[in-house]
């Protein structure tokens, strides 16, 4: 399983989760975990996803997400989970 973390941050508005998860559905990317919070009107969401279903290169998936990012005016980052496991788990 190729796990990645997608972080979405920006001013809160309607449809953020809907737009991101719709795109993930279109790409056949399964969502494994979501945490989301709003602090002072600032939206922060972190999603752990499994990229294997997409059968697509990492950069291509990222390009799709950046298109959504522009549409909803949020900052979207995707990076492999391995970096967090390496840093915080022995």
């Amino acid at each position, binding site marked *: 399983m190729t796990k990645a*973390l997608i*972080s979405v941050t920006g001013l809160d508005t309607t449809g953020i989760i809907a737009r991101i998860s719709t795109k993930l559905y279109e790409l056949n990317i399964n969502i494994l*975990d979501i*945490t989301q919070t709003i602090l002072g009107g600032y939206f922060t969401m*972190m999603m*752990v996803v499994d990229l294997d279903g997409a059968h697509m290169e*990492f*950069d291509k998936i*990222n390009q799709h997400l950046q298109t959504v990012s522009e549409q909803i005016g949020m900052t979207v*980052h*995707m*990076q*492999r*989970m*391995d*970096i*967090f*496991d*390496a*840093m*915080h*788990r022995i």
Partner: protein
Amino acid sequence: MIETGEILQTMRMIQEENFDIRTITLGINLLDCSHPDPAECAARVYDRICRKAENLVAVGNAIESEFGIPIVNKRISVTPVSWIAQNDPRPVAFALDRAAKEVGVNFLGGYSALMHKGATNADERLIASVPEVLSQTERLCSSINVASTRAGINMNAVREMGTIIKETAALTADSDGLGCAKLVVFANAVEDNPFMAGAFCGPGEPECAINVGVSGPGVVKAALESVRGEPFDIVAETIKRTAFKITRVGQLVAREASQRLHIPFGIVDLSLAPTPARGDSVAHILQEMGLEMTGAAGTTAALALLNDAVKKGGIMASNHVGGLSGAFIPVSEDIGMIEAVSAGALTLEKLEAMTCVCSVGLDMIAVPGDTPAEVISGIIADEAAIGMINNKTTAVRIIPAPGKKAGDRVEFGGLLGFAPVMPVNTFGNGDFIARGGRIPAPLQALRN
């Protein structure tokens, strides 16, 4: 499952505290490229590098993108050229520079000679060509090993390097002596160092190897901000924890690069390497410990603690640690060091003391252009003596900036930064340097 706080911590380290992988360096053996005809030798070298390093930059960029961690440099180190150039080494130098450009690496190290006990004819030819080569190439780096704990100090080489450094500065006078920023004089040079300008692929290395250098002075500084006023036990523990995390990412990147390039993993170098950017300074870590400026009394102790804690934290995080491993203290590449020198807090003599307890040595130091060659040789001899006696790597990368005097400023640009010109002790040492010969290996050499 990783917790949100841990994810945010990693992101903060990368986005706000300048955590990055400083370099993925591909070591390439060139021994079988040797040929009596310099043109043929150069052609073989060029082909070998272009073939072996074909995918290095693309793979580095892909890892950077997927893991979200900047990989600042992709570089190459090669077999010391004095071992493969049977005649004129200059065509090989130019071929190396062309190959570096072709594969897209910003520096290639290995225009080197190991002459800590004595020089071969090939070493002599190489060393004599260094000023011309460094003035006519862009990405090639040169290193000369003049001393070791096992062999002592080759004072003939030390004498010669003073002159070579002066000539290199003169031939690159239009860029403040930039050629000297690509030339390192070593004692106890290591074979798997991924950092420039001193990287080369040593005789004990495999055909190819991936060596990774990590960095993150800003991360260590930020971690120490949270323990202000605490005793040094806590300071050391905080640095160790941070170094562990940084090195784990270095190990991850090294493993990925190794798998994707089908090249064996060599080592992770546990170094704290600063850049001229604010928030990426080793000097500022020392100051965070409670010093007004780097160079203040206590600086050497602070650096000793830092250097040791980085190694202790990092060693558990990687299965092979090597290279230079420690805190670098270059002047021009560290905004805190630049400020300390400009304020008069940090002198050449204090820097020399600091090199006893840090990773390497006197690094990226600009001195007046009229500094005599024998004074530069004397500085090299002093550094080499520290390395020889203490069983450690020391180095001198010094720039006698043409036309500049103490207090002036030199600009190298990019990662090489800028530096205030430091005064040197100019009392005579000509008779000392003129002696030549070898300083015998110390008692520390006899360890069997």
